[in-house]
């Protein structure tokens, strides 16, 4: 019994870690869909690029292994997030400017295909940059540091990743609901023409959405590297697919829905694994998605941002 409780506790934290990463990526899907109704298939690869940018930032800062001094660790982590997230934001804005904005009034399929193209371009750029082999990333957060809970040894890194996901979600949520720019985002999402007539700069607002979504993907990329220690150019596809599923599960366009969807997928994955059906985890995730959509076509929490879909 004690053994079972320890195992379940450990799995609970495994799910929080992986779910936190999915949630951060899912936010980008849901924001972009909410504002321009585009399923940004390149977003998984933006997450992948984020993990490589984070790797480069850490290496440039001269960090190669665990940092044990707490002050130094906090400083290094802050530097990693504060440098990587804006870089990724700018990359996201660049993609929007050159790949999506020219097609904003084109038929829906055009930007969708473009998004798939951008996904391949990002993969090939990273392939050319770092090669086909997986690359080890500096795990500056000491993954061996643990605490005991219900007989299980939990690594602090899982708590850290969960907290990062939580803090960034809350920050994003309050930005969107409280700030002026957030209000511009919500109005653009509700009715682009009306918002424009009321003086909202649509281009800036949409660019801002891409900036925030890509920055969050960058944060997820950092978290992924810290936890798993290896990144590869092909990483984006499966993570992107799961995060997209998370966004649909929570109700695409809905910020808190995407986050809860991300954690839900993390838990589904871990539960199937614990039951001994690891091979089936993808099938189970999509089975859950189908069941949810049959009963709640708009996802678990419905759509909040977009009202025209």
């Amino acid at each position: 019994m004690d053994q079972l409780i320890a195992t379940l506790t450990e799995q609970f934290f495994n799910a929080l870690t992986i779910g936190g990463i999915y949630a951060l990526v899912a936010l980008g899907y849901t924001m972009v869909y909410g504002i321009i109704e585009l399923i940004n298939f390149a977003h998984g690869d933006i997450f992948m690029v984020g993990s490589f940018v984070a790797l480069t930032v850490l290496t440039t800062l001269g960090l190669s292994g665990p940092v044990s001094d707490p002050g130094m660790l906090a400083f290094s982590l802050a530097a990693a997030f504060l440098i990587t997230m804006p870089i990724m934001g700018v990359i996201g804005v660049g993609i929007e400017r050159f790949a999506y904005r020219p097609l904003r009034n084109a038929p829906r399929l055009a930007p969708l295909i473009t998004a798939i193209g951008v996904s391949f371009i990002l993969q090939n750029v990273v392939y050319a940059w770092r090669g086909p082999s997986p690359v080890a990333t500096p795990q500056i957060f000491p993954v061996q540091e643990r605490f005991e809970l219900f007989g299980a040894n939990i690594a602090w890194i899982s708590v850290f990743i969960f907290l990062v996901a939580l803090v960034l979600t809350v920050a994003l949520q309050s930005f969107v609901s409280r700030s002026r720019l957030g209000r511009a985002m919500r109005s653009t999402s509700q009715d682009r023409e009306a918002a424009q007539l009321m003086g909202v700069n649509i281009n800036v607002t949409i660019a801002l959405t891409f900036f925030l979504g890509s920055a969050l993907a960058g944060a997820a990329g950092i978290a992924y590297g810290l936890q798993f220690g290896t990144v590869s150019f092909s990483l984006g596809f499966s993570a992107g697919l799961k995060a997209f599923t998370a966004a649909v599960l929570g109700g695409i366009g809905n910020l808190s829905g995407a986050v809860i969807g991300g954690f839900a997928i993390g838990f589904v994955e871990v539960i199937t694994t614990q039951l001994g059906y690891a091979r089936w985890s993808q099938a189970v995730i999509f089975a859950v998605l189908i069941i949810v959509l049959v009963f709640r076509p708009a996802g678990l929490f419905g759509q909040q941002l977009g009202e025209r879909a």
Partner: protein
Amino acid sequence: MKLRNLGAFGAIVLMVGAACTAGAPTSPPVSPGASAGASAGASAGASSRGTVKIGVDLPLSGGEVANGVPTRQGLELAVLEANEAGGVGGYMLELSIQDDAVNGVHDPDQGASNAGILVADPAVVGMVGPFNSNVARAIIPVTNEAGLAQCSPSNTGVDLTKEGSEVYRPNNPEQRNYFRVATPDDIQGPAAAQYAYNDLEARSAYVIDDTEAFGVGVANSFTAEFEDLGGSVVKRDGNDFTTNQSFAALLTAAGDFDVVFFGGTQVTGGGQLRKDMGTAGLLEIPFVGPDGTTDLQEGGQEGAMITLAGVENSENVHGTVAGIHDIPDPEAFAAAYSAEFDEQPGAYSALAYACTQALIGAIEGSADTATDMAALREAVRAHIFGGNTYETVLGTLNFDENGDSSQKFISFYKTDTELNDGTGGWVFVRQEDFAEIAP
């Protein structure tokens, strides 16, 4: 190492690349030295009959350089030496080298297309390659139809020669042409199980594969043997690394065990599994893998097992290689190899050298009776499958009716993180000939 190879062999790679693009059968000379040696030998030899070619298909670009290039150099060395000795049965040897890597990864379709180029060239009387079993599955139907003797230095897939191999010979089911010097997986898996049970004294194992044909096969045969020995397999999992890159939940769910066996390669999850074992605090549990993870590469090399696992997690990692380690005269081979290529032999260099030696022996034994190239090609094939023995760098061996070598060595290795100034490396533990117990 990669850059050095690219520099030294850029010319050949470029020519091979050109051959692939043009789709035309070309045969670059081995090296300027070889051509000079060839003409000198031809003028000296009284019974010069011209030139025959040995076709080569290996993955030679991108992430495969570490696999393909040392293997290619092994067979190049054999051809160089044969030509310097005045040729084989009156013929000078040339190589027709094809690269089956597409975007840096071995590709079965590219392999089949390369094999088409090779069989279309009448001067090609034997072939060495491919490196990967899944490429072999695409190539054998092509070479079998053409009756071209083909020797793989490294394929370990059981179905290539044994039960189920007839599907790769749709046109000539009765006529074998494919043979190999590597030891198949139905021996490698059980050998790893004996190592885990006897050498590591493990009694409970967690067995996980990468859901690919090679990984599943070797993991299944490990499981069967480990249980036969009296051990218990606490859990038998599969993880498709392209859809799930984390082993944390799998390790938690597996519970307690004495050893982990991973069926797969370092890039399909082997490296990440060991890294996640480190994160989960399970480093005192030994990791055992097949030749897919036992890459014998230094830590820090791109894509190597120790690089991907991280040297801090790489102590206590063990594995098998499907071939002989202590060849009868390793110093002589290493000296000849490094004199030519300025580096140490790779894991499959000697095996590729032995493949070429078998083909050379068959050409020598057939040259006097075969009247033209088509007859020579068939005679070489018949010679290999005629129960003849060959003196090779691996020792004296012959090939059975399936094309498997009479030698069935498995070599065992483990990591040592102190090696190479602390970046880590592999050390040889022991080797064993499983010819007696072979299925």
